């Protein structure tokens, strides 16, 4: 079972992101379970959502305590919320920012993880470019696909278009594809750097 | 051939004798083939105004709907005295659910009839004043604002009679009830309280609101008829004296109801789309003492030291109604208000 936790703020589509991820897994014939952190959410308040992906039916209904991957939609949360609770050294982390981990003051923290599993991605910029709105959720899923290999970009596309029919879906998908390319390039650069 | 002059106002009641009218003008109650929706044999007290009002109103509604009527009833005297298990006095489909939900239950009945395509069947809901102005008020207001196709009838006897005469939001000032006892200098129910539900109903902009008393059968039936001619939420507020709770003689029910109107304490009017369109004028303006003094619930005003101050305050309320509704405006000049032969 692969477990994902997504952090963001009310209005950024945190719940929808987990839902889309689960729909993408479903499109690939896998079992998936997405659910929000069940609060009385208000615009701007911290929000958490979860997604489990497995090849077998998922029976448990407990919250994700030890995620295999973390997606952080809003970088302003990093010093306010226990974002990294329960994270193992093997976990993947994707943060929506144009800054690096060192610039975020997370350089020391990042060294506890596999370097190639921790990435930042300017999803808000990509969203503004492709959607004209700062909605990073579907964009980051493209980056998530590239980072974790848990899901294909095609499946993300199927789910995004089902969730947002028409032009909105197409534009979200274009942004997700851009994030996928961005992350793939970053990974390649990292591999390149480590072999140098 | 000699002609005999017709004397309309023979009995001092201003009631027009049915036998003197054309068939069209006669009341539903004068029709031997009327439904008799609330049949005899029920357990109401002698002289019960509510039993009378309910039969008048529902029979009229039955005529207006060609017998295609469903009634919903709140808990209260009417419900208890009409359906002591395993008997029922109702000759129409009738449902009692709870004290506070008759308007909502009626909404449900109306919705079911609509979805079933039974557009010919009409819905009335009925409750006492407690079930209307107090515990049922939330549901009633909801039914009004949605403009659900229900005629809601309040039989107002100005207190919780079923439970032994306790104050409701419709109990008038100074009236003695079991929870507003005639004790102390401000004996009876307080002044400056209570709900004027007809006006609250009008504020919902529903298509039809009217008041009536059991003393004027023609007027009551006409209002039911008019209410049934329109769809949407309609409200009819009928004053029904309660001999038990008011301490009036069983034989005086009609007289007390008439005095409530003739003093101006109970304005009889109708309103269409939130605007008053007609009032029943006072025929014979009467001081409130005449109304109050024949009711035991006001006996504390007429003791050894009559409370003229309180009576004056009640008179002021009547006077204000008379001004507000123009209750003296249309007094017909050619009718002797004393009711004697012309």
């Amino acid at each position, binding site marked *: 079972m692969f477990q994902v936790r997504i952090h963001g703020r009310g209005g950024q589509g945190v719940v929808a992101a987990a839902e889309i991820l*689960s*729909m993408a897994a*479903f499109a690939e014939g896998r079992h*998936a*379970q997405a*659910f*929000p*952190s*069940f609060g009385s959410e208000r615009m701007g*308040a911290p929000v*958490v959502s979860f997604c489990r992906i497995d090849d077998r039916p*998922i*029976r*448990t*209904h*407990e*919250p994700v*305590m030890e995620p295999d991957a973390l997606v952080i939609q809003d970088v302003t949360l990093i010093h306010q*919320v*226990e974002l990294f609770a*329960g994270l193992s050294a093997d976990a993947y982390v994707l943060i929506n920012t144009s800054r690096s981990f060192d610039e975020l003051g997370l350089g020391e923290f990042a060294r506890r993880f596999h370097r190639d599993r921790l990435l930042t991605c300017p999803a808000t910029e990509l969203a503004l470019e492709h959607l004209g709105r700062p909605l990073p959720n579907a964009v980051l899923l493209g980056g998530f696909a590239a980072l974790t290999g848990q899901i294909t970009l095609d499946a993300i596309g199927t789910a995004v278009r089902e969730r947002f029919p028409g032009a909105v879906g197409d534009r979200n998908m274009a942004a997700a594809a851009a994030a996928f390319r961005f992350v793939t390039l970053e990974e390649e650069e990292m591999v390149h750097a480590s072999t140098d | 051939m000699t002609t005999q002059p017709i004397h309309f106002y023979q009995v001092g009641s201003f009631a027009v004798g049915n036998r003197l009218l054309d068939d069209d003008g006669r009341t539903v109650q004068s029709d031997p083939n009327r439904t008799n929706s609330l049949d005899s044999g029920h357990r109401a007290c002698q002289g019960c105004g509510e039993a009378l009002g309910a039969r008048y109103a529902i029979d009229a509604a039955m005529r207006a709907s060609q017998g295609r*009527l*469903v009634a*919903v*009833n709140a808990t209260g005297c009417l*419900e*208890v005295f009409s*359906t*002591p*298990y395993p*008997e*029922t006095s*109702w*000759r*129409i*489909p*009738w*449902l*009692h*659910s*709870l004290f*506070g*939900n008759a308007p*909502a*239950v*009626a*909404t*449900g*009945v109306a*919705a*079911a*009839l609509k*979805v*079933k395509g039974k557009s010919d*069947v009409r819905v009335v809901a009925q409750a006492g004043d407690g079930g209307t102005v107090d515990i049922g008020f*939330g*549901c009633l207001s*909801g039914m009004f*604002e*949605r403009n659900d196709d229900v005629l809601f009838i309040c039989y107002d006897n100005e207190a919780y009679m079923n439970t032994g005469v306790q104050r409701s939001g419709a109990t008038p000032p100074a009236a003695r009830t079991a929870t507003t006892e005639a004790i102390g200098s401000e004996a009876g129910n307080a002044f400056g309280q209570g709900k004027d539900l007809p006006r609250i109903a009008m504020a919902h902009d529903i298509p039809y609101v009217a008041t009536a008393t059991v003393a004027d059968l023609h007027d009551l039936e006409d209002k039911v008829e008019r209410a049934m001619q329109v769809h949407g939420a309609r409200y009819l507020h009928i004053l029904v004296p309660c001999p038990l709770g008011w301490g009036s003689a069983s034989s005086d029910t009609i007289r007390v109801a008439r005095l409530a109107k003739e003093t101006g304490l109970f304005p009889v009017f109708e309103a269409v789309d939130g605007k008053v369109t007609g009032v029943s004028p006072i025929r014979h303006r009467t001081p409130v003492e005449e109304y109050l003094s024949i009711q035991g619930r006001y006996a504390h005003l007429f003791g050894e030291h009559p409370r003229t101050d309180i009576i004056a305050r009640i008179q002021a309320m009547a006077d204000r109604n008379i001004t507000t509704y123009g209750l003296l405006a249309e007094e017909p000049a050619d009718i002797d208000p004393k009711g004697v032969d012309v």
Partner: protein
Amino acid sequence: MLRQIEGSRAVAETVALCRPEVVCAYPISPQTHIIEAIGVMVASGALAPCEFINVESEFAAMSVSIGASAAGARAYTATASQGLLFMIEAVYNAAGLGLPIVMTLANRAIGAPINIWNDHSDAMAVRDAGWIQLFAETNQEAADLHVLAFRLAEELSLPVMVCMDGFILTHAVERVDLPDQAQVDAYLPPYEPRQVLEPDDPVSIGAMVGPEAFEEVRYLAHLRQLDALERIPALATAFEEAFGRPSGGLVSPYRTEDADIVIVALGSVLGTIKDAVDARRDAGDRVGVLGITAFRPFPNDAVREALSGARSVVVVEKAFSIGFGGVLSTDVAMASHDTGCTLRTIVCGLGGRPITSRSLEQAFAAAALDELDSLTFLDLDHEIVERERTRMTTTRRSGPSAENILRDLGTVASRID
């Protein structure tokens, strides 16, 4: 059709396939998504004929349903928590009148302190109201139980409440196989009321009944619930034949055949319990699970039979009777009083407290060693409780406890669960 779909949406679409004719809506978390989705289907004409009524309270929602059902329409509404309590008088009334209303209860805690999260206090508060109460373990079952519920309700002329865990199921997006219209139509015949308000055949419904007949009327209601014990398994069998998957029934046993210890529970926590039980099986404990699908009527015989071989029974409950202990436990104890097993209660998940498989596993391991207390509050922070107890004994005006405890805990916004 297989869909990856939110639980509320799955229930809404399934309810729509049942062709409800009057649907009342009053918003209360966590059931709102269900009612919103049905509202859209009515507005778009996808669900017709149907009257969708936005009412002013839950009391009105149930009251409108009563009127609609009595006038011959198939009536549906949904509620939760405070909403259920606000309509409770009408809930009893619907059962007393024998009206086959179907209602979804998105289980949620009851305040004060106000809490929007899941537990079973609401369902337990109306367990004696005369409604049939069915609990869904998964969103698949939640959807399926509604089809079964309408048929059961109308066959017996009794209202049915389908209980599904608020948020945990209602807001979870999972795989659900939704039936199609033809399948539902074949399973669920049109509503033929036992009593109806009809001018051509006037009846009085809701008469006052005195001491001379009240007990008989109540006993009759009991017998009709017992009839449901026969009908629920039959309808579950018919459901499996019609839809090709099992759903519903009175109880659902899992690995109980040779079990020393049987865990009994209601609703979605059964999934987490099964994971924990598998882990304990791997560790060598002979543990099984008994899910109760029909809580009212309570399947005494089925429960007794399922527990007959168990040495120890652990009831896992998301509610409790303050001043006493488990609610479901009482029923299970009555059903198994002559089987010789030891009964323990674990109260957990109150107000949305996460129930983790890790904590459950520890508790089950303790039960296997006979080291589990007869009443355990899972993951209870005793220190926090003691701090408030001390405050209350040392200070007369110690203030509101809930707020004091929150202050002790620090900011809650930063907590992940």
